[in-house]
């Protein structure tokens, strides 16, 4: 391992981890509150990447692309929640896994149809690089770290300081008690689901310029998203962030120590941690509903 690769690897791993956080927090929150495994978050990630790309291409503004993505995905999320999830909240987890997986397949197919199979290189909205701890680090990645940090603070503020957020935190613990206080639990579900979809789509939108965008990125992100969420502890904001950074760093550092390990290290870590603490790093034993 070359020592002068260590600095870049750590920074790159950190920014990769930020993307993982954005993609995984949705799944984590959805499970925590609604006890569903929303694998379709990968679909919103995929759409986020493509919609932002297309709008940027058409209008020249990446930020407009982000806005349009948020709007469209929020609408889609509302629709999906109403049509698909509304009726299966009480069913076993396996149902939601299969249904959301089916929807993911569907969206991948739609993406294939609209944009084709060829991988698309997406231009980063921010160019150049800055010297950071002696390393030449792309400004766009600095932006990703900053924006993820901001989003994390926003989510934290939402969950801890707003009444809706507090209701959601209470609902993660015991939905029945929340209802018995007179709060409409279903509305909480809708809000949480839409927020999750938007966050996942932002993950995709920001990830686009870092990878070659093609329809199957929706599938390849699935395991990493799932592992990050479970590793951190389903329902835990802090846990997902920590787990995401760990996964990002592990993959990045692994690639300079022993390249083949990038594929396998996350899964090894995942299995080892689960053996020691089955509820994940910061997870608590969530009551069955």
């Amino acid at each position: 391992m070359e020592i002068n690769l260590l600095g870049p690897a750590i920074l790159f791993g950190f920014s990769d981890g930020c993307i993982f956080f954005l993609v995984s927090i949705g799944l984590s929150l959805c499970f925590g509150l609604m006890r569903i495994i929303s694998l379709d978050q990968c679909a919103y990630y995929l759409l986020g990447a493509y919609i932002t790309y297309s709008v940027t291409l058409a209008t020249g503004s990446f930020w407009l692309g982000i806005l349009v993505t948020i709007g469209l995905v929020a609408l889609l999320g509302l629709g999906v929640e109403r049509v698909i999830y509304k009726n299966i909240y009480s069913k076993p987890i396996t149902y939601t896994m299969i249904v959301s997986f089916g929807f993911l397949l569907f969206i991948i197919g739609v993406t294939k149809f609209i944009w084709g199979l060829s991988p698309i290189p997406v231009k980063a909205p921010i160019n150049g690089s800055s010297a950071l701890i002696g390393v030449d680090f792309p400004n766009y990645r600095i932006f990703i770290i900053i924006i993820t940090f901001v989003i994390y603070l926003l989510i934290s503020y939402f969950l801890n300081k707003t009444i809706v957020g507090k209701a959601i935190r209470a609902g993660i613990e015991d939905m029945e008690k929340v209802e018995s206080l007179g709060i409409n639990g279903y509305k909480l579900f809708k809000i949480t689901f839409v927020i999750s979809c938007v966050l996942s789509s932002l993950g995709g939108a920001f990830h686009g310029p870092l990878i070659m965008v093609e329809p199957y990125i929706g599938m390849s992100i699935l395991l990493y998203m799932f592992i990050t969420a479970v590793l951190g502890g389903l329902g835990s904001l802090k846990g997902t962030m920590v787990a995401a950074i760990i996964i990002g760093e592990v993959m990045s550092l692994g690639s300079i120590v022993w390249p083949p390990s990038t594929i396998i290290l996350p899964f090894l870590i995942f299995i080892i941690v689960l053996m020691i603490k089955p509820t994940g790093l910061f997870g608590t034993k969530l009551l069955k509903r």
Partner: protein
Amino acid sequence: MDKILEVKNVDAAYDKAKVLFDISINIERNKTSVIVGKNGAGKTTLFRIIAGFMKPTCGSVVFSNNEKSQNIVGLPSHKISNLGVRYVAQDKAVFSDLTVKENLELAAYPTKDNNWDLVFSYFPKLKILINKKGAYLSGGERQMLMIGRSLLSKPSILLLDEPMEGLAPGIVEGLIEVISKIKNKVSLLIVEQNIPVICKLADKVFAIKEGRIVNEFNDKDDIKKATFEKYL
């Protein structure tokens, strides 16, 4: 009798196992009614049906308030709570990640009823613990919070499921005092197995055995004379 709640011919079952048979009871407004019965007799099931967390296989529950009556069976539980029916569950579980303040905030949210002073007048200790997270409260403090919570947002009737269970005698005394104070302002339907408590608080007692109402005691004197041990 000014009835606030009328349970009419309610049957209930878990899958095929029937647990309640033709339950019919009338709860009088601003009086304290108590249900006694063994564990598994169906008391909690009845509460859950009234609160809307479970559907009866037949029968109706009529809630009357402000000169309006309606059958609340089939309504979502939060709507039933908004009507004024507050269910305080047996498990004494408050939201552990939320502080006392936040617990009360949530309870006050539906009607923006921020008359916390009323709650603090009954449970002054909660004011001291206001910023403590639910996880760090003792059993008695949690029960105070649970009942305190249910007093916000203008309740009409409180369903208390074994409120004294597992609490130290000192705390029980305190709770009895509080309940005596609120007795005349709020209707109470309590499930209790603690006989001295029943004798002190109850205006009316229903005995339930194996899913059926087997006896009713309407008189304070009747209640004092009755031996409830046989129903426990």
